[in-house]
């Protein structure tokens, strides 16, 4: 599939890659330069492949509180929440951002690879509720402006007063050059930034507006290293149908105190003991610890597995996220990564690797 910005990417000389069935820009030039542009300045992303599912109706809040693991009733109108949809066993079907558009209207943003699964799972879970679940993924275009200068750029087109009021993880309906948009202060890079939702017919006008402002387009390669440095999980890597939010270190987004939700009893049971947990890894070598590589202890015994790895442009070193067996004593254990037979010393560090200055 092609996003509504396909021709724009070709015109900008993008190298395309298949991502969840979509032809997406991998990079437009150097992926390292694109990464650093977002950290230092601002960059523009096409995220039109992502899933947009609208939930509305009188039972919307009650329904999402049953279907998702967080307490959606605590999300105020105009706010957003990072959450997950889990199976009854507590495994992650997808990680989501839920935007509360009105008292009884929500936008659920799902990963491109899971948009259909989330949409049908929500529909399936909605039978006993007065709600409608509508998948508008293919009608919706999405671009993101990310980086410390994002607010300067967006303020040229949206009243700076409105931008000042739009705090992190907030959203509002407004317009840009007369085009109605949903503007959200959210992202997946660890930087300040904005996500702009509009119809597929209008998204190219907004993209071109920012390209004309000399904003650098950023591909998926840099998006991956940006989110990795920010310690953000990627579905299919840190999250999948054999991993719970507890393993991923995201217990804080589970609202155990709300009444029943799908996955609750399994997650309650699990929260007492887990066999592995998500950790950050820094390596001495510049070699990349890629997904699937084993973590080994001093005697060469496998004690974990890498889920994502990259050379971090911001830190200037090789970093990774990995699942490490919980019985490893980090105070004494010497962990290495087996990189194609090279046993490369690693240290376990707290996530995220990178945090922006406030």
């Amino acid at each position: 599939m092609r996003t509504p910005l396909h021709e724009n990417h070709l015109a900008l000389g993008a190298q395309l890659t298949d991502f969840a069935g979509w032809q997406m820009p991998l990079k437009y030039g150097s992926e390292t330069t694109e990464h650093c542009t977002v950290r230092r300045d601002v960059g523009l992303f096409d995220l039109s492949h992502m899933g947009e599912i609208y939930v509305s109706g009188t039972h919307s809040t009650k329904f999402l509180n049953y279907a998702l693991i967080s307490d959606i009733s605590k999300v105020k109108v105009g706010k957003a929440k990072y959450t997950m949809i889990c199976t009854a066993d507590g495994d992650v079907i997808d990680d989501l951002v839920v935007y509360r558009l009105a008292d009884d209207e929500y936008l659920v943003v799902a990963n491109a690879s899971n948009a259909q699964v989330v949409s049908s799972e929500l529909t399936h879970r909605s039978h006993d509720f007065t709600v409608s679940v509508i998948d508008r993924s293919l009608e919706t275009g999405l671009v993101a402006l990310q980086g410390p200068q994002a607010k300067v750029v967006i303020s040229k087109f949206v009243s700076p007063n409105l931008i000042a009021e739009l705090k992190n993880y907030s959203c509002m309906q407004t317009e840009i050059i007369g085009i109605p948009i949903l503007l959200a202060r959210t992202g997946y890079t660890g930087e300040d930034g904005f996500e702009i939702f509009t119809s597929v017919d209008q998204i190219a006008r907004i993209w071109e507006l920012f390209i004309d402002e000399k904003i650098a387009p950023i591909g998926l390669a840099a998006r991956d290293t940006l989110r990795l440095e920010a310690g953000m999980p990627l579905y299919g890597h840190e999250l999948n149908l054999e991993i719970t939010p507890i393993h991923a270190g995201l217990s804080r987004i589970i609202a155990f105190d709300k009444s029943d939700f799908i996955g609750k009893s399994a997650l309650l049971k699990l929260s007492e003991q887990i066999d592995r947990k998500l950790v950050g890894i820094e390596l001495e070598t510049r070699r990349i610890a890629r997904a699937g590589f084993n973590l080994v202890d001093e005697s060469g015994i496998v004690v974990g597995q890498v889920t994502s790895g990259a050379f971090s442009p911001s830190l200037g070193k090789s970093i990774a996220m990995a699942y490490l067996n919980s019985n490893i004593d980090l105070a004494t254990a010497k962990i290495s990564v087996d990189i194609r037979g090279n046993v490369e010393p690693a240290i376990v560090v707290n996530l995220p690797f990178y945090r922006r200055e406030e």
Partner: protein
Amino acid sequence: MMSVPTNLNYTAEHEWLDTTSGTATVGITLYAADALGDVVFVKLPDIGSSVTAGQVCGELESTKSLSDLYAPVTGKVVETNLAAVENPAMINQDPYGAGWLFKVEIASLGSLLTAQEYQAQIS
């Protein structure tokens, strides 16, 4: 179309070499550097070690993938580019200049391509 320097020789594995003196200077071509993506790690043969034309003698790892480095000539390694090892971005920025990789005292040449033949291969 990407043009290749005419004063160099090439291999089918996208290495270039300069044999104007008795020592061959070896690097990878711009075409190879672009195809790899940003190089983040380089493993070069040790100084004093012998390399054999057509055999693997090192590694280049980019953000995207790992590639073997082949020796374009047979001989003894006399110098390696430590600056490129410490800052592999040089290989992408200036593959025919500051991003050279190693120098070999030539015992025998392997199967080399002229600039014209290499240009034809990548076109």
